[in-house]
């Protein structure tokens, strides 16, 4: 059932077994897991069924570090940021879960095997099943192409699946609406998590609407699923009992903010003979009703040997060159690409003749490359509360996103690896637009992946939530979403956060019995 909180009588109290704050992929997945059960679930969602600029403005905030468009990088409406996500899906790699001695603060409380049973159902939920994320032989069979095996040992291929992309509100909202045991409270902003006197349990959620009403939700269990930035903010805002904020007794809430730095335009690869680069390496291929594309990732052995962070690279054909064409006469970059294609032609194509027999002027193409990389967990990269306030009178979010020299060095090594793989296979040549000794480029952007601000660790001095996503020291408060990731890997986070949420649902079902 949907209820618009703006239409309830002021001061209404809603009771449930499980209160879920936030109706994005995490909150909706959790609620669905209880659909049709005897468990009463209330989803409290700040937005409505349509985008609303006044609601969205609550997401504005202040930047203290790398420039980050806080309101554009998430969506405050039912369905959350799935209303405009890109749909890239891939699980984390096994090494991402490990405590790596070269990555400070790394290590999940469990290995990938703990999430493995949930990745299948999660792939279903984001509509990419049947999914095969790494088996080259499977993709060679399925596409009918010979897939070149990378040869240097530095990288390997992984396969990204593209969700349609699933709009969680549209897709699963009707299911929640129909379920007799689920109530979705729309246009309801949770402004405070009310804790008991000692702060050891939560006894209610304070809700405000933009038309000035105040309500309350009480439940046995509370799950915060407001997204990777807002999860931290809501805990910090809930400071009437614990002055530092709920769950923040060890000053960890909001710290360790991680993104996947995206460096579009870091380099380009020229390829003379596209037949050497099968379509799935450069294009999205429609298979089993959804798109799939290969990604270049550093191999686990290379990461260990060189003590590097993880990364993902993908490329796509961005332009074609022919002898004497206008582009190469007008643009320095195009001229350089064309020169390289002409110079290296014998290294990149068979025989001495033209690459295309019927087109003697054809030189080849260039691939635009994108990369998303892991950043090391960094306590100084953090979310705090700003001095500015929103229309509800609450301090806005302040983000100080920081990257380190280790992050940059790692990425540069992987860029070189990419050049070596293409060179070894005789497929292409890579030109880098970032210098080895330069600082982080000014134009680094995030991927709207917000991780780490309520990190998971068995030790309360090192994590906000425990291995079950329960806030340390608070008996009935849980966090869902990528804010619990202690490390980010280089895979887009939504598939993993959905898998983690399914695991949390199983845990809560056990608790509720």
């Amino acid at each position, binding site marked *: 059932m949907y209820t618009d909180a703006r239409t309830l009588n002021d001061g209404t109290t809603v009771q449930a077994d499980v209160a879920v704050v936030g109706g994005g992929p995490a909150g909706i997945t959790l609620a669905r897991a209880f659909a049709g059960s005897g468990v009463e679930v209330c989803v409290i969602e700040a937005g409505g069924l349509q985008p609303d600029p006044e609601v969205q403005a609550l997401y504005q905030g202040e930047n203290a570090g790398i420039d980050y468009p806080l309101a554009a990088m998430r969506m405050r409406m039912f369905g959350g940021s799935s209303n405009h996500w890109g749909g890239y899906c891939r699980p984390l790699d096994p090494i991402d879960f490990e405590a790596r001695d070269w990555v400070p603060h790394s290590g999940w409380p469990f290995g990938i095997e703990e999430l493995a049973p949930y990745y299948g159902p999660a792939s279903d939920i984001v509509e990419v099943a049947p999914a095969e994320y790494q088996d080259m032989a499977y993709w060679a069979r399925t596409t009918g192409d010979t897939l070149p095996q990378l*040869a*240097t040992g*530095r990288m390997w291929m992984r396969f990204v699946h593209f969700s349609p992309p699933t709009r969680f509100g549209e897709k699963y909202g009707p299911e929640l609406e129909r379920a007799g045991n689920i109530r979705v409270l729309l246009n309801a902003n949770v402004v405070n998590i009310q804790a008991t006197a000692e702060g050891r349990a939560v006894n209610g959620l304070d809700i405000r609407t933009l038309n000035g009403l105040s309500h309350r939700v009480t439940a046995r269990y509370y799950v915060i699923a407001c997204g990777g930035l807002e999860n931290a903010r809501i805990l910090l805002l809930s400071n009437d009992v614990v002055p530092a904020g709920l769950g923040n007794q060890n000053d960890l809430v909001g710290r360790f903010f991680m993104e996947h730095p995206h460096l579009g335009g870091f*380099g380009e690869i020229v390829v*003379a003979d596209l037949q050497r680069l099968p379509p799935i390496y450069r294009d999205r291929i429609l298979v089993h009703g959804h798109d799939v594309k290969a990604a270049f990732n550093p191999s686990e052995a290379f990461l260990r040997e060189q003590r590097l962070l993880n990364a993902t690279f993908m490329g796509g054909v961005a332009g074609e060159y022919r002898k004497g064409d206008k582009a190469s006469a007008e643009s320095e970059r195009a001229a*350089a690409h*064309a*020169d*390289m*294609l*002409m*110079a*290296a*032609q*014998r*290294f990149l194509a068979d025989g*001495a003749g033209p690459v295309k027999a019927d087109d003697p002027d054809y030189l080849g193409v260039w691939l635009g490359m994108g990369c998303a990389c892991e950043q090391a967990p960094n306590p100084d990269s953090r979310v705090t509360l700003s001095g500015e306030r929103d229309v509800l009178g609450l301090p806005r979010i302040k983000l100080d996103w920081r990257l380190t020299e280790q992050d940059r060095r790692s990425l540069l090594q992987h860029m*070189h*690896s990419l*050049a*070596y*793989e*293409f*060179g*070894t*296979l*005789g497929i292409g*040549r*890579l*030109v*880098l*637009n970032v210098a*080895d000794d330069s600082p982080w480029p000014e134009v680094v952007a995030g991927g709207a992946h917000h991780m780490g601000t309520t990190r998971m660790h068995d030790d309360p001095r090192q994590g906000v939530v425990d291995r079950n996503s329960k806030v340390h020291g608070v008996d009935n408060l849980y966090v869902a979403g990528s804010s619990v990731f202690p490390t980010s890997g280089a895979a887009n986070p939504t598939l993993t956060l959905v898998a983690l949420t399914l695991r949390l649902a199983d845990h809560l079902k056990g608790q509720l019995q």
Partner: protein
Amino acid sequence: MRSGPACSRRTFLLTVLVGALAPTGCSDKDASPPTDTVPPWLPGAVGDVDAAARIGRAYLQANRGERNLDTLLAAIDAALVGDPGLGGGDTQRLLTALQHTVRAEYLRGESVNVQGWVLSVTEARVYAVLALAADG
């Protein structure tokens, strides 16, 4: 005296390199003869000599110590990996050996940065030879 395979490889390079002017056979005399002639087979290693020369010039600008044909050819010669065993005459064998060398350098990560391009060292030197040749 250089070892057998190295000697024959070098002989190979020089034979094609200086053509009739160069002595053939493996002797002390031909181990490192000075030459200012571009090996006739070398332009065939690239798709376009002018384009290669433009890249080669950039390499030479950053590596001024190598602005010398002998130095470059000696470095290329030293890098050429073993007999690829392909038929098709000397030139073909050299071209194939060069292909293998370049790929092997990428495999080992032996690269130079030429105006942002990550290039195998030998590949860059081939372009540099053609630059020197073009510039007289």
